């Protein structure tokens, strides 16, 4: 054993999407940070689909950006196709999504990390944790080197006892061709963590030369690509198209005839997979009447011909995979470069961590990403930045920060994990957010930039840019509220052209904007802003005014929600002493140890009567409720 000379404030184990955000956040806060990864060449690797964002996920990327994280800037620099999803739906469910040049994404992130002051990055495989008196003191690598630290963040991805399945062939690996971390898993068990098993899968990649794109439907990017980051002026790179094809009856027959050779269906896989990202075997078994399933052909980069077959995740043997792929129109001569596989891995059911992402059993030890049962790069990065922030604050002796459900999707994500746990890979959806109208992608900066600045993650430049945008929004909202239009012939003509009824009396621009048929552009034609405003400012102004009534209602709901969140429960509160409490409630409260009555009320199976009782008992015991 050799102990490295430097004692770190924060060690981040794992260089994926959670680990990179965690390490950058901690180092940018001035903490001496080590990023320990088993392979420097796979930093920020996209193990599955070559894309960032999507509905609810894109929201989180914008939040990470507003807090001062890297993911948004990284995809802006390395994306090869950008789309704003749900453009024809409401403002709260629109979200950015981009296809990435996988290698460019990795290289840029590695470079950012290498340049980051206070951050060391080293290659090494985690073998064990150093723990004394239930407090973390460092980590040990496979080469028996000890790195000492005040706090440690584990972001182990699919590597804890990773087991890959291709049909009836299984082998130990965290990703295809990469060794798993088996010992670390046992170490966590010995420390008292309960472990669970999850499964995920990835589809085949084929060579673009072997695809007949003429039979597929082209899916181009947006003509006006919008960046993820508030700090990216515009997207300049050339955009590539994706293509769309579908499975046919023959595909389904092949799969059905070979189900006994699928690792999923032959019982080889124990772990629970994500329902929203099912294998193609699952789709065909569960929805036998569906004539075809969409397959998206997604390019993996500017300098590679690998194409990702999105929708064709499976655990069938390679010979069947070839048959399946070639049964699909456009892919009849396809050459598979990497076969599809399923991977099983250990996770730590997340009711064992605090909302700060610090573990309950071991002080100073934090978890982020798939180890907490989530799936998705964005979910991982969102936890990563919060774990980095809180590990740094803890190392400095400061109070940790918790985002609540009304502030950010990241808050919803973490609260769900620690309050409800998860038994399948957890993915974010907008329907999981109670205050969805407030958690929009356009206003992530308005929600979180001040916090990012306070923490010390937002540079002067970034903060000034935010302040300018905020000022422009506020001034324009105020202008629309206070500017009154008296009916003139010009105005009535413009209104008529927009199928809007004529003015009967003087109205404010804000009142006009509330008419469903009128847009910000039309209204400001009648009375232009004194300066030309950026598109994103106009968008935020339009939403703020058009949906004002609904936004106000959500704000009221948030006030009520915060009242219960502020009713703290003492950490050592003895639930078993409440005779009236049902055993089920005692057991759940004792296990989760909710911080507040609000969190307690969200535990599954807890009834309003349990909460009423808890509230009365807290009052009785003179707690500050």
């Amino acid at each position, binding site marked *: 054993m050799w102990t490295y000379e430097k004692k770190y404030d924060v060690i981040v184990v794992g260089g994926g999407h959670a680990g990179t955000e965690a390490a950058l956040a901690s180092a940018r806060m001035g903490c001496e940070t080590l990023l320990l990864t088993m392979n420097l060449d796979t930093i920020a690797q996209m193990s599955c*689909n070559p894309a960032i964002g999507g*509905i*609810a996920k894109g929201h989180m990327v914008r939040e990470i950006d507003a807090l001062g994280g890297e993911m948004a800037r990284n995809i802006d620099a390395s994306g090869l196709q950008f789309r704003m*999803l*749900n453009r024809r*739906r*409401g*403002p*709260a*469910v629109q979200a950015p999504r981009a296809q990435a040049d996988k290698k460019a994404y990795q290289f840029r992130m590695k470079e950012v990390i290498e340049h980051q002051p206070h951050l060391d990055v080293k290659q090494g495989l985690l073998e064990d944790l150093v723990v004394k008196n239930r407090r973390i003191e460092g980590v040990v690598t496979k080469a028996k080197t000890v790195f000492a630290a005040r706090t440690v963040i584990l972001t182990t991805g699919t590597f804890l006892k990773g087991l890959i399945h291709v049909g009836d062939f299984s082998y130990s690996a965290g990703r295809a061709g990469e060794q798993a971390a088996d010992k670390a898993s046992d170490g966590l068990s010995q420390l008292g963590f309960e472990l669970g098993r999850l499964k995920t899968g990835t589809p085949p990649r084929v060579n673009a030369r072997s695809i007949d794109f003429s039979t597929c439907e082209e899916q181009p990017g947006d003509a006006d690509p919008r960046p993820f980051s508030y700090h990216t002026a515009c997207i300049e790179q050339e955009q590539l198209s994706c293509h769309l094809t579908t499975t046919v009856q023959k595909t389904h027959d092949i799969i059905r005839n070979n189900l006994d050779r699928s690792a999923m269906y032959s019982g080889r896989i124990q772990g629970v997979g*994500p*329902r*929203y*990202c*099912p294998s193609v075997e699952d*789709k065909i078994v*569960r*929805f036998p009447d*569906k004539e075809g*399933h*969409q397959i*998206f052909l997604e390019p993996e980069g500017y300098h590679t011909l690998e194409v990702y077959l*999105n*929708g064709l995740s499976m655990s069938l043997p390679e010979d069947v995979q070839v048959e399946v792929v070639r049964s699909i129109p456009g892919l009849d001569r396809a050459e598979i470069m990497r076969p599809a596989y399923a991977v099983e891995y250990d996770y730590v059911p997340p009711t064992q961590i605090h909302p700060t992402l610090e573990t309950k059993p071991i002080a100073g030890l934090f978890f982020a990403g798939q180890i907490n049962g989530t799936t998705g790069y964005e979910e991982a990065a969102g936890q990563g930045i919060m774990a980095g922030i809180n590990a740094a604050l803890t190392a400095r002796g400061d109070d940790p920060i918790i985002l609540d459900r009304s502030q950010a999707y990241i808050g919803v994500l973490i609260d769900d994990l620690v309050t409800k746990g998860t038994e399948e890979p957890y993915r974010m*959806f*907008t*329907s*999981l957010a*109670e205050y*969805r*109208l407030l958690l929009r992608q356009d206003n992530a900066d308005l929600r979180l930039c001040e916090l990012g600045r306070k923490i010390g993650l937002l540079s002067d430049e970034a903060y000034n840019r935010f302040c300018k945008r905020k000022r422009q929004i506020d001034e324009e909202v105020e202008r629309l509220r206070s500017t009154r239009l008296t009916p003139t012939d010009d105005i009535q003509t413009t209104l008529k052209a927009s199928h809007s009824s004529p003015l009967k009396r003087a109205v404010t621009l804000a009142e006009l904007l509330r008419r*469903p048929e009128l847009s910000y552009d039309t209204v400001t034609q009648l009375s232009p802003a004194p300066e030309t405003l950026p598109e994103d400012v106009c968008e935020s102004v339009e939403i703020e005014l058009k*949906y004002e009534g*609904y936004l106000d*209602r*959500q704000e009221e709901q948030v006030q009520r929600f915060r009242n219960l969140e502020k009713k703290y429960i003492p950490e050592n509160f003895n639930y078993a002493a409440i*005779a*009236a*409490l*049902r055993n089920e409630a005692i057991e759940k409260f004792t296990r989760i140890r909710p911080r507040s009555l609000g969190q307690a*009320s969200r535990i*599954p*199976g*807890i*009834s*309003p*009567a349990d909460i*009423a*009782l808890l509230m*009365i008992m807290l009052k*009785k015991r003179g707690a500050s409720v």
Partner: protein
Amino acid sequence: MSDNDTIAAIATAPGEGAIGIIRLSGPDAISIGERLFRGKTPLRNLPSRQLSFGHLYIQGRDFDKVLVSVMRAPNSFTGDDTVEFNCHGGPFLLRRIVEAVFQEGGRPASPGEFTRRAFLNGKIDLSQAEAVSDMITAKSDLSLQSAFFQLRGGFHRRFVKMAESIRQAAMLLEANLDFSEDVEIDVEMIKPPLSQALKHIEDLILSYERGKIIREGAVVTLAGQPNVGKSSLLNRLLEEDRAIVTDIPGTTRDTIEEQIDLNGIAVTLVDTAGIRDTDDPVEREGTRRSQQFIDRAAIVLYIVDGSLPPHSQDLDNISGYDRAFLVLNKSDLGIYAGWQSVQPCYPQIILSAKTGDGITTLRARLRETLLGKSDLPDEIVTKERHVLALQQASAGLSQALKSLESGNPGEIIALDLRVALDALAAIIGETTPDDVLDRIFQTFCIGK
């Protein structure tokens, strides 16, 4: 208010009765009871939930022969140790015994406090607690039936079913937002189930008025000129209802209130002083009070002497009511033909208070008007809390339907559906699992 001491109260309704029950509940219930009770076996040794005979002693004097039952925690209604003395009825006797209990250390229970403890001790949930309090305050048979209905959970099931159809609509809406790349949904298809749920909720809100009448009873005011037979009609209605007949005190110059059981509805009959202009200050006061009763009456019986031609004052008065019956009294003397042309917007009833002719019809029509036509209240909202929640649910649903019409975005519609669902959940009194995603995954093939 402490929840740890021993409370006591007379548990039976006030008034004369064959038996009165004194209930003690709390940690000292048995020891306090012990100090008053003498039987073959001391209270502390009696088996739970069994009636035993003994004597109550107050200040050393044998005061009453009683049956006593001991229910030990947690197997009692309140969940605390409970002692119940079944005493001989009579307000004075019961008062004396409960005071003795207070002297021995019991505290007078506040209204509803036994139920509160049962709730605190986890013996009943919120909606059951309300149903129990309804049962205690139930004024008549029909009200009891409605209270039982709620306890049995039929009420509960109806709300669960309604919430279910809204949740199904919310699911389709959400699938269209979160999975717009995977599924295609025609949002129009959620309109019919939402409209249907809205109709159901509006019916329930209407039933509240009816439910309130069942629970709290209704006021029926007898109005009319002097000497048309108001007092005799009142007497006649009371005579029909033999169980509650009492003497009528006072003078017809003042108002008289009496309760009758109108086939299950507790009806307070108010005989007002004759309405007429007068200089007599006493009579004027009587008239003023009459007007107040008429103002808060559910139904006014405007009584005239049907054997005489209409008085011009009558015709004025009759047109001033909207929920009333025109009662043509003294049918035994023959009805003056001119009354046929007096047709107010409410029923005209011909009867004789003297012979009782037509009284049955009057009772039936009164009940029908108070409750609406359907016979049994199989769906009645009785709690204000419930009707408030239903009003919220109704507002949410109507707004959602309006938004669907005007093409508002899905997340806005979802917000209004959430309001409706939360309001229903508040009535159901349990957290219903938020299973929108589960439903989506079961219904649609999601995911690339």
